[in-house]
């Protein structure tokens, strides 16, 4: 199965027998490796230093031989070195800013954007089967945050809805307005909520404090992305989150779906109804020994998450992230094969870095400014 087939029919690609999956992902990654090996001097030097060529990758067991780029390199002022494509071919720059404040910028050329848009859209169809309804987006719109990876990925979902609204404006969130929107669509459309866990959680806290129980619709979904740790370091408990969604909005756990990704990669791992996040067929997640990243750990063992992404033609999409987790290659009851990935935490010493964290941090700072503002004298100035 080639990349084009995987992109157009991820449902089929995600349900191949495990052996066929391994052969297909190896083939597309070998091809991607060859592409960058031939065209990227910086990557080629890394390959030469490691003594590895595309001819050395013939089976899945060879995939760990492909040299990796640490994601921290995407923050560098000399990040042009990473590019395989010339800057003139770069169409989209996506960024994420963590607690450290230095943005990570991933540059995608036209081919990569074409592939990513098709792949993500068709994956949404496979996992969510959404084609109508009302979408309450608890995040800024792309107009307000045009380069923010999380918002871009959410935004690709809004086209399937008959109506949608973004309810973080000027970096302020009004939970009462969210409630009014959901009530306004009651009996008209199936209502869905999309946003980072911390903002959905804020909305739930508002419902809890106001003692409001609002039943959404039987087919309603809650779709999240952006991590479960707040910028303060405090974690949001997934079981508590699911229980509150059931209690205050009537959405069952099987319709609450989290996603995991990183802006530097075209991997968006989407949760099925059994709460396992499936790695898309064009990516391979390799878990690496934290102390020796050249060593791949077997499924089930916890280590550094490395992502090998076959879609990227702008730069080598072979990335060693700052995330810690594990993969599972046992069959999923949903029928999908390949790998599922679980994120556990950030690597020790790594900053908390994601779009949701920067939104929350900025949103809180704005609220503090608003709370401390000196009221204008009567009559204004």
């Amino acid at each position, binding site marked *: 199965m080639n990349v084009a087939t995987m992109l157009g029919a991820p449902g089929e690609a995600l349900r191949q027998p495990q052996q066929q999956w391994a052969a297909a992902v190896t083939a597309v990654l070998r091809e991607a490796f060859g592409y960058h090996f031939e065209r990227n001097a910086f990557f080629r030097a890394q390959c030469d230093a490691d003594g590895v060529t595309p001819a050395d990758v013939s089976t899945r067991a060879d995939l760990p031989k492909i040299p990796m780029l*640490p994601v*921290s*390199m995407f*923050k*560098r*002022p*000399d*990040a*042009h070195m990473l590019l395989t494509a*010339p*800057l*003139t071919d*770069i*169409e989209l*720059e996506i*960024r994420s*800013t963590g607690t*450290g*404040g*230095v*943005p990570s*910028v991933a*540059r995608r050329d036209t081919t990569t954007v074409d592939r990513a848009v098709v792949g993500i859209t068709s994956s949404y169809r496979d996992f969510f089967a959404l084609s109508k309804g009302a979408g309450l987006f608890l995040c800024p719109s792309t107009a307000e*945050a*045009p*380069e923010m990876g999380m918002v871009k990925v959410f935004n690709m979902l809004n086209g399937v809805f008959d109506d949608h609204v973004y309810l973080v404006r000027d*970096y302020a969130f009004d939970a009462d307005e969210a409630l009014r929107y959901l009530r306004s669509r009651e009996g008209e459309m199936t209502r869905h909520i999309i946003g980072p866990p911390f903002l959905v959680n804020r909305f739930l806290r508002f419902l809890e404090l106001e003692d409001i129980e609002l039943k959404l619709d039987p087919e309603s979904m809650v779709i999240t992305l952006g991590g479960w740790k707040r910028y303060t370091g405090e974690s949001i408990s997934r079981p508590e989150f699911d229980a509150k969604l059931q209690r205050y909005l009537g959405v069952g756990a099987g319709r609450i779906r989290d996603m995991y990704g990183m802006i530097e990669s075209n991997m968006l791992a989407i949760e099925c109804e059994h709460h396992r996040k499936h790695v898309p067929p064009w990516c391979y997640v390799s878990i690496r020994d934290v102390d020796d990243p050249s060593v791949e750990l077997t499924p089930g063992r916890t280590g550094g998450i490395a992502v090998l992404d076959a879609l990227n033609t702008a730069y080598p999409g072979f990335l060693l992230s700052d995330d810690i987790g594990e993969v599972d290659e046992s069959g999923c009851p949903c029928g999908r094969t390949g790998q599922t990935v679980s994120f556990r935490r950030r690597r020790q*010493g*790594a*900053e908390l870095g994601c779009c949701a964290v*920067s939104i929350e941090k*900025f949103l809180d700072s704005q609220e503090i400014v608003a709370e401390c503002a000196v009221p204008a004298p009567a009559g204004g100035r």
Partner: protein
Amino acid sequence: MGRFSATVVDHFTNPRNLGEIDDADVRAFVGNPVCGDQILLTANVAADDVVSDIRFQAFGCSASLAVASLLTATIHGSPLGELTDLDAARLEELAGGLAPDQRHVAALGADVAHRLVNNFRRGANDDDPISCSV
């Protein structure tokens, strides 16, 4: 014009004056808290108020890295007094044009140039808030 002008492509791909001067006469930093674009300039200023050496550190989109490089190439050898006239429109012109979503970096560049002048005249220095754990 494509998404990036020839000047932006050139400065992004071959950045001039990248780095930081140890014990610089003046340091100026400007960052955008929302998008995260950041430029740090460090410079030495000769007795005749001419910028004799300048380096930049920048983080953000390709246009911001290119404009930071272009800015140092423009400032190097110029009298400080001339920098106060350097505005976003002039920087955009020097960059060979910027796409609408890139124009904020011209404003960022002008801001940090003005801050460099003000800091030097006030004897002030910005701390180095840029940290990049690479």
